């Protein structure tokens, strides 16, 4: 078992004919993910990836024809809100949006609409999901993680890779890795994923990678102290970031004294979480316990 994606995942790739969409669809396919369809308005009827994956004009048709149950979105920011709404109305139950730079008012509308429906959004501005050895939805390089019992959840993309890679170097594997994305408004937060890992029999240990900005880590800390029985390890990026500066991620804004790395680390430690000084320390900390 695992969370969110596994060998039953049937994936439709929105924006499959774009450069990134095509490159990573091939990677996912090679990893073993059931990439059953792609979409690109106006290119319905074509086939891509050596004729292995059919392209449809819309997600609705892709779902009707192929039984896709999960969507991954590679479309540009200005079309991403529409793409998420399209996926939500098509009957898939999981949407993973990788797109970066979506206007925040678009995301507020999308999120408030999705909250009325039975569909989960992961992202946007995230690297997606990886259940090593079973399925990969997104862009996390498949070869940097091996199957195991560590659940990883992270707001950051490449920083997540560091952690997976560092674990693999010590021959430690992941149950599922979830990149929730760094945008201020997203679909799935730390608490959602922590709850899933807590319920997942395959996961024994949880690694949570946070960063400055917002208060999601503080809320996660509170949740951990009340509801999580499995050991949690963490790293929070941005201790050296100067306050008031926007560090790439729209989420990473330090306003007033809210959301500093110091505060987050303090909250997590108070909740019994072991917090690393840098990401590569995490495997040894887990081994040490």
């Amino acid at each position, binding site marked *: 078992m695992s969370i969110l994606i596994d060998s039953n995942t049937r994936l439709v790739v929105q924006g499959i004919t774009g450069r990134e969409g095509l490159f990573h669809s091939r990677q996912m396919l090679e990893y073993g993910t059931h990439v059953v369809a792609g979409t690109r308005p106006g290119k319905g009827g074509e086939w891509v990836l050596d004729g292995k994956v059919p392209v449809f004009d819309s997600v609705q048709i892709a779902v009707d024809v192929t039984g896709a149950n999960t969507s991954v979105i590679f479309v540009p920011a200005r079309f991403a809100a529409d793409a998420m709404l399209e996926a939500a109305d098509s009957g898939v139950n999981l949407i993973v949006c990788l797109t970066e730079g979506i206007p925040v008012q678009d995301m507020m*509308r999308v999120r408030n609409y999705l909250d009325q429906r039975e569909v989960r959004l992961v992202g946007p501005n995230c690297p997606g999901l990886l259940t090593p050895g079973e399925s990969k939805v997104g862009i996390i*390089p498949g070869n940097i993680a091996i199957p195991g019992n560590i659940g990883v959840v992270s707001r950051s*993309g490449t*920083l997540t890779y560091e952690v997976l890679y560092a674990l693999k170097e010590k021959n430690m594997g992941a149950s599922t890795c979830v990149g929730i994305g760094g945008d201020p408004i997203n679909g799935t937060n730390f608490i959602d994923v922590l709850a899933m890992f807590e319920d997942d029999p395959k996961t024994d240990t949880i690694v949570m990678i946070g960063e400055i900005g*917002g208060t999601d880590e503080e809320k996660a800390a509170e949740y951990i102290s009340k509801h999580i029985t499995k050991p949690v390890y963490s790293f929070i990026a941005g201790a050296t970031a100067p306050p008031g*500066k926007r*560090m790439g991620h729209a989420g*990473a804004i330090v306003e007033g004294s809210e959301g500093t790395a110091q505060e987050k680390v303090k909250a997590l430690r108070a909740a019994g979480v072991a917090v690393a000084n*840098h990401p590569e320390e995490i495997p040894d900390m887990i081994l040490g316990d």
Partner: protein
Amino acid sequence: MKLHEYQSKRLFAEHGVPIPNGEIATTPEEARIIAEKLGGAVVVKSQVLVGGRGKAGGIKLAKNPAEAQILAEKILNLEIKGLPVRKVLVDEAADIQTEIYLGITNDRAAKKPVFMASAAGGVDIEEVAATTPEKIIKIHIDPLLGLQDFQVLNLAVGIEMPRDLWDQFNTVAHGLWQAYKSFDATLAEINPLIITGDNRLIAVDGKMIIDDNALFRHPDLESHRDLDVEDASETEAKEHGLTYIKLEGEIGCMVNGAGLAMATMDIIKFFGGEPANFLDIGGGADEQKVAAALRIILKDPNVKAVLINIFGGITRGDLVAKGILAALEEVKPTIPMVVRLVGTNAEEGRELLANADMITAETLADAAQKAVAAARGGN
């Protein structure tokens, strides 16, 4: 993108918010002519994108056109918190009886816009927020439904707005909401909204921040950009699709991904160094981007060593390597460079860089320690 007071107020006025009569001047003479046109007393207000303009002498009341010219000259010669004053707004002076604060911003926790109002408006609103937050009324707006009249009523009641002004207040609140919404603002603020002696509401000062990610919907706003507030290197970086923030340390960093970039800075510090910058080349960075990034880093004279940390996902190691080689060719740096490539096509990248004169590292900790050592060695 931050907008100037005069720009913000004009956008509010487009949506029905009353603002003072006034115009922009770039010379003292223009200020005088505007003051003559307006008649009576005017306020001469520096247009710079920092707070505390009043305390810095950037806002002055002029009783007549001659005085407006003199004050405009003084203000146009000011530099406020490092920013030159290039324009002044000359506004009709208003008869201020009461100062109210009104603002809309995004509440990320609630995932909704939040409309804030306070009867204690004016320059001390931040003090109010810090010491007596209960004096600020907050109402969340459903992003699908939009601002409703009953919510405006609750704001009006909450700040004890006199009843005979409720209709005017409704117009102002809806105007501010429309401006916030239609221009994709992340902040739209009127402070103060004043009540005049003859019982009118006027937005005397205004502020807007536009969501940079939404500027594609507002190409006309691009002309509103004030380059003074933006560091030249940061602007250059932005043009290349990079995010660069200059810091005070000696180790230049080039990383893909904001989180990893911050973590790289953190680990440099952890091993005793100081990062010279934050630089995220973003996802899917290509040769051109990488070359531009390296040029920008090397422009900073404080930089004693460079740490390149690329974990390939969308970004491919081979393209990054090609970019580095192109930049080296062009810039011919004399300082030590530490490079760490992992992930997608990292192997190919490392092969391409094998012949370049660079220090390589396997782990992030190793890379950081080597960069710190190299920066020291280079002193």
